[in-house]
């Protein structure tokens, strides 16, 4: 059985199937990019893998590390090592970034039977990683994503990924809302996480991201399924010719 495998997945909202007989295999250490026109189901794919309740699975399977994750709660999928960097991170008024990170890290420690980090060690780790990402310390005290710019939201998503050290990172349009400097910073952070036992699924519209984070495979999605798979060069082809020829 593959490390991460989707087989014959049909899923969507209550009224409409968006992914249609979708299949994908990702092995440990690989970086996959999924590209495709708007409305083709890329974000639905990310939502179904991570258990977003707004999506309904009609048929098919999704397995990770040999386990059927479709029966799992979103938090159980997170404990297993799946992480989604949201295209539009959710605002939570009244919860500071630092408080949220502490809850998340502690929840992972508890699920894995590990001791929670003490406050000074936790703060040090957050501040070091925030500095790597160019996040000002005052942002850590602000309420989660409330009033943040697009770039700040994506940096905070990346900070969460660095803190949680997930095994399978799904990044949904992490390049949207980022200026060139921010994109370089965030891409460097992603590249620093690349390893033989961690994989990435990058959802993007643009080749620009894939020149900074070089994928092993590029998939083109249309009509709810993958219609072509190739190497990193496929992204350049798409950038030059668009999706019209598919």
């Amino acid at each position, binding site marked *: 059985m593959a490390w991460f495998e989707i087989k014959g997945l049909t899923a969507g909202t209550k009224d409409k199937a968006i992914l249609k007989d979708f299949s994908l295999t990702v092995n440990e250490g690989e970086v996959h990019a999924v590209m495709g026109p708007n409305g083709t189901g890329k974000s639905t794919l990310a939502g179904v893998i*991570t*258990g*977003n*309740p*707004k999506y309904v699975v009609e048929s098919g399977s999704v397995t990770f590390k040999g386990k059927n994750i479709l029966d799992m*709660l*979103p*938090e159980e*999928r*997170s*404990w297993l090592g799946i*992480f*989604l960097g*949201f295209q539009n*991170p*959710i605002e*939570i*008024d*009244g*919860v500071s970034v630092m*408080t*949220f990170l502490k*809850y*998340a890290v502690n*929840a*992972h420690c508890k*699920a894995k039977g590990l001791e929670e980090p003490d406050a000074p060690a936790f703060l040090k780790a957050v501040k070091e990683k925030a500095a790597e990402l160019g996040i000002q310390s005052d942002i850590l005290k602000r*309420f989660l994503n409330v009033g943040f710019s697009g770039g700040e939201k994506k940096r905070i998503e990346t900070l*969460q990924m660095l803190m*949680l050290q997930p095994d399978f990172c799904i990044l949904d349009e992490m390049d949207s809302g980022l200026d060139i400097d921010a994109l370089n910073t965030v891409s460097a952070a992603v590249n620093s996480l690349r390893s033989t036992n961690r994989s990435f699924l990058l959802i993007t519209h643009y080749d620009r991201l894939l020149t900074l984070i070089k994928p092993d495979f590029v998939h083109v999605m249309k009509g709810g399924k993958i219609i072509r798979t190739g190497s990193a060069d496929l992204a350049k082809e798409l950038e030059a010719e668009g999706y019209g020829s598919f």
Partner: protein
Amino acid sequence: MNNLVIKEDEEKICFGDYSDITIKKGGKLHYYHIPTNDAEVNIYVEEGGFCESLLLFCPEKDECKRVKITVNLDGTGAETISNAIYLLGKKADYALNMTVNHLAGNTASNQYAKGILTDSAFLDFVGLVNINPNLKDISGNQLNEAMILSEQARIKCIPELSILSEDVKCTHGASLGNLDEQQLFYLQSRGLPYDTARYLILSSFTNALTDKIADSEIKNDFCERISKWLKQNL
């Protein structure tokens, strides 16, 4: 009944049960109260005075209670921020009336109530802003936000404005809602169990008001009571 007077240009933080509070010219009061019985509080703010108040209701038992807080902006330049947090569960039956009377020109008021209802709790809420005739430069804002967590819980909410002057800027509104599914999902996707995610969202709902408490001891007391109520009632 206890009366309280804030002297001219004095600034005070007070906690407790008062029936009449007078804030003299230029005085400032930050007033916090957790009513344990039926209560009626009348606050009089004189010229240039300021009153910020926060009432908290988080009963542990089934209770029927009637509370009214009235702020009278008596002098030019007087200002009030009148807030309330209500956390009602089981068969709690509350009536809360928050009234602001603009009795002088160049006065400003902000009323903000927010809370959570669950089980079979009921809240009868009236938010009233009265503006006397022939006044100029008046600002009045009023908002009630409620989160209803059960089908049996009910709120009757009347945001009311009585405006008898023309040079007035006023807003009023009320919103009812449930837990946001996507907020819950976001927290769960980071590993927070459902119950923890729910607790965090609900406790954060009142943070907008508790964060502004001017005294750290009172703030901690309010936050602990809210946390205890949430743990017991969710």
